[in-house]
């Protein structure tokens, strides 16, 4: 039996409707009620059912016709579900006719109107998008009604909210507290105050290409504690539209070039080398060296050295992951994965042995080499490129030996650790984001793992993906205040509470290693496995605490890091354009390298 029960504010039951007749087998995801007492219920598997005030099913929309599963109520008798237009550029709210169980009125919505709800005041309806609430007035463009961030509230934590008749807002927020490992629930009542009563703070503009939850949370905490400065977040992903995800970056670049430079940048997916070459970023080593609490020796210094360009550190990150390639030490040996070594190994491969897995195509190899070897190929400071080197030519020939695309028709999943152990595959790409990744791989390979680096021009390259990174721009007027915010990423307090990935604070890293090495012994005196590795053929391998030998191996891997992964779409377009002719056999590798060198050189020189 299931009931929908209505209570007054004293907790007295006003009404109870038996909803069993709806016969939902799956989860009821959304419930709404209209002014006549009809109840609308929706679930992903069961579709939409409309019950009369007595609980009898009066209309039904099957799951296959139902569009989205979440109901939206934009008026006392206007309840509907949203759907995309065929080209996914617009959304439509399809109002449900409770008498016939069909869709009646269709209301066109903006493409980003996901959560639609009843308007207030002059607004017909409102919708939530990217941490903000927008309102739509009849015959007018929608306008921003509220940005949760302006009220020091993280929109990701807001579970439910409603506008009261007097324009005030009541919201329910649930926030995860890392230190207590519990969620903190709160009811928030927001009422308007006179602007003159609001304490005016100096603004520090923080720009990002996507709404980063961690940075948003960090900024909110900074805003709550600072009485002089206030971080204002500018999320440029809002400018991406119609499937073009580069518009946000274009907009940011436009503003930078026009002199509207943000004070702090969230560095993910930004052309950091280009910004640094244009003199847009400050050297953060100066701030670390001046800091009263954090010093170089408190950090994983090698990682920051790798992130530096000519001794200048343009971004700091709280965490990092490592990307390399691994092999079976007994088969591969200790050699590095230079293109030359790979080419030589490929010549002597037995018939049943592959060099890499099926995902490795020609383009994949070239792109990987370019991203991982960017430092060797391009010097953004001098504007020099080295795409015409013999090593690059050799790499092109090597890449040509790979398939053009993945043969999905004959694809079959196989555990790659097994393939490495049995000698059916020589190498696989390996990411190490945490100590657990590392020890799982060690367990799966029986300690035979050797990290040889991803294919590189002169040697195998071990690279890092920096986690959330922050940079301060040279035009920032309050650099010390900006550093106060940015430095938080490096503090023990912050990194201790954000335990994913490998931390950049040395003390936190050491604690993580200590924890990974801590052996748990059960009541019978047996070692307790930390986790299990499944190799896809019902084999379960227990993963135990890290040994000192494994710690040394991980440290060797970290100390072998020599590159930060960088992406550059314009450069990739030029290279892809030239590769077509080469892969089609129209021009030689030398000619292709020469053309790439000529064209990319122009591109890089322009950025100077």
């Amino acid at each position, binding site marked *: 039996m299931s009931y929908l029960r209505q209570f007054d504010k004293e907790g007295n039951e006003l009404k109870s409707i038996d909803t069993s007749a709806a016969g939902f087998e799956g989860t009821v995801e959304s419930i709404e009620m209209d002014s006549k007492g009809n109840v609308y219920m929706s679930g992903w598997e069961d579709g939409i059912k409309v019950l009369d005030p007595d609980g009898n099913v009066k209309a039904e929309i099957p799951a296959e016709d139902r569009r989205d599963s979440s109901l939206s109520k934009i008026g006392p008798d206007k309840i509907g579900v949203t759907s995309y237009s065929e080209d996914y550029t617009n959304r439509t709210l399809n109002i449900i006719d409770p008498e016939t169980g069909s869709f009646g009125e269709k209301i066109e919505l903006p493409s980003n109107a996901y959560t639609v709800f009843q308007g207030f005041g002059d607004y017909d309806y409102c919708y939530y998008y990217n941490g903000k609430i927008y309102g739509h007035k009849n015959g007018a463009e929608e306008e921003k009604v509220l940005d949760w961030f302006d009220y020091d509230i993280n929109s990701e934590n807001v579970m439910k909210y409603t506008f009261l008749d007097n324009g005030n807002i009541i919201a329910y927020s649930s926030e995860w507290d890392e230190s207590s490992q519990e969620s903190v629930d709160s009811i928030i009542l927001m009422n308007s105050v006179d602007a003159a009563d609001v304490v005016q703070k100096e603004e520090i503009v923080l720009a990002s290409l996507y709404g980063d939850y961690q940075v948003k949370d960090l900024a909110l905490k900074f805003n709550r504690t600072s009485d002089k400065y206030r971080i204002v977040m500018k999320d440029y992903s809002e400018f991406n539209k119609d499937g073009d995800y580069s518009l946000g970056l*274009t907009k940011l*670049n*436009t503003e930078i*070039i*026009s*002199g*509207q430079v943000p004070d702090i940048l969230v560095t993910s997916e930004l052309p950091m080398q280009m910004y640094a070459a244009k003199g847009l970023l400050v050297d953060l080593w100066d701030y670390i060296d001046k800091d009263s609490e954090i010093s170089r020796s408190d950090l994983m210094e090698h990682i920051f050295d790798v992130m530096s360009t000519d001794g200048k550190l343009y971004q700091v990150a709280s965490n990092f992951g490592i990307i390399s390639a691994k092999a079976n030490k007994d088969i591969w040996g200790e050699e590095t994965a230079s293109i030359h070594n790979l080419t030589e190994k490929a010549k002597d491969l037995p018939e049943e042995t592959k060099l890499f897995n099926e995902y490795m195509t020609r383009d994949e190899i070239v792109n990987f080499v370019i991203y991982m070897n960017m430092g060797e190929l391009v010097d953004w400071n001098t*504007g020099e490129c080295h795409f015409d080197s013999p090593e690059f030519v050799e790499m092109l020939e090597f890449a040509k030996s790979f398939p053009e695309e993945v043969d999905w028709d004959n694809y079959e999943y196989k555990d790659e650790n097994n393939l490495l152990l049995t000698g059916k595959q020589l190498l696989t790409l390996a990411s190490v984001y945490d100590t657990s990744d590392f020890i799982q791989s060690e367990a799966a390979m029986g300690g035979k793992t050797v990290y040889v680096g991803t294919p590189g021009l002169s040697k195998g390259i071990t690279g890092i993906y920096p986690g959330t990174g922050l940079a301060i721009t040279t035009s920032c007027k309050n650099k010390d205040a900006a550093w106060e915010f940015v430095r938080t990423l490096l503090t023990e307090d912050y990194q201790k509470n954000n335990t994913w990935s490998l931390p950049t604070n040395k003390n936190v890293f050491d604690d993580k290693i200590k924890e990974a090495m801590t052996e748990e012994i059960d009541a019978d005196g047996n070692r307790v496995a930390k986790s299990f590795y499944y190799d896809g053929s019902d084999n379960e391998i227990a993963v135990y605490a890290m040994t000192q030998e494994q710690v040394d191996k991980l440290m060797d891997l970290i100390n072998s890091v020599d590159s930060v992964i960088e992406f550059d779409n314009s450069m990739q377009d*030029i290279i892809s*354009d030239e590769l077509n*002719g080469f892969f089609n056999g*129209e*021009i030689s590798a030398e*000619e292709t390298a020469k*053309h790439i060198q*000529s*064209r*990319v*050189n*122009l*591109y890089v*020189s*322009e950025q*100077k």
Partner: protein
Amino acid sequence: MKLINKKGSSVSRSSHNKKLFHKPGRDFLTSLGFTGPGFAGVLIFFIAPFAVVVYYSFTRGVLDHTFTGMQNYSNVVHNSAFQLAMRNTFKFTIAAVPLAVVLSLFLALLLEQKMFGKSQWRTFFLSPIMVPIASTILVWQVLFHSGGVINDFIAIFGVDKIDWLKSEYCLVVIVILFLWKNLGYNMILFMAALNNIPKTLLEAADVEGASAIHKFVHIKLRYLSPTILFVAILSIINSFKVFREIYLLSGDYPYDGLYMLQHFMNNMFRTLDYQRLSAAAVILALIMIGIIALLFVVENKFGKDIEG
């Protein structure tokens, strides 16, 4: 014809007109009435935007109007991409403009002779102007692609195929395209100028037994000098606009031998680097003004005696 003035005296229409149009300030207003719309157009669409460009070239950003002195010019002049673009553009101009002038003059002189199908030949040389640029590019791609017709042809003689647009011959391909596109129009201008040379002078030269070369150098060439100047200026301007064809053939970043000043400016515009774009545009404008001024000086020196 007589007109009666307000005081009752009669004046001739011509003397009335003289007074009307020679009244102080009226001349100016009348000429302003005629030239004003044209001047307003030039002011709004050319002079004012160029003034903004000059202003941008001295500021840090479109919204940050901090005066930066010659910083943007220094950045541009020291940029290796700009230097390459400059070299390529001048190499192209120096190769293409004299050829465009000489060859079109040669064609005009040829068609001035009595020959079969004169009208058809004229149409033939003029027809490239009417061909849309996209079609021209398509034809050029078919001809000069590494697997194109030209390579098929030279393969008959055992010559290895050449990737024309990505080799040291790339500029030659573009010069040929430029000449093919512009010769016809230049030729028509020269033919018109040749028709305006006084026949009596040429006949007198014939009577005095002047050779064809003597007549060409001392009569025709001197009468043609204003047209040569005009065609040269037109060709220089067109040579700076050859970017359009190169862009359609090889995109934003062509082989470095084809990278022109317009590529640099176009890419600056695409990456919204208005300051460097403006500085490059001002430098280009100054160079153009310098070259055209020089041509005027040369033309003045050689052609002033026949202009009267």
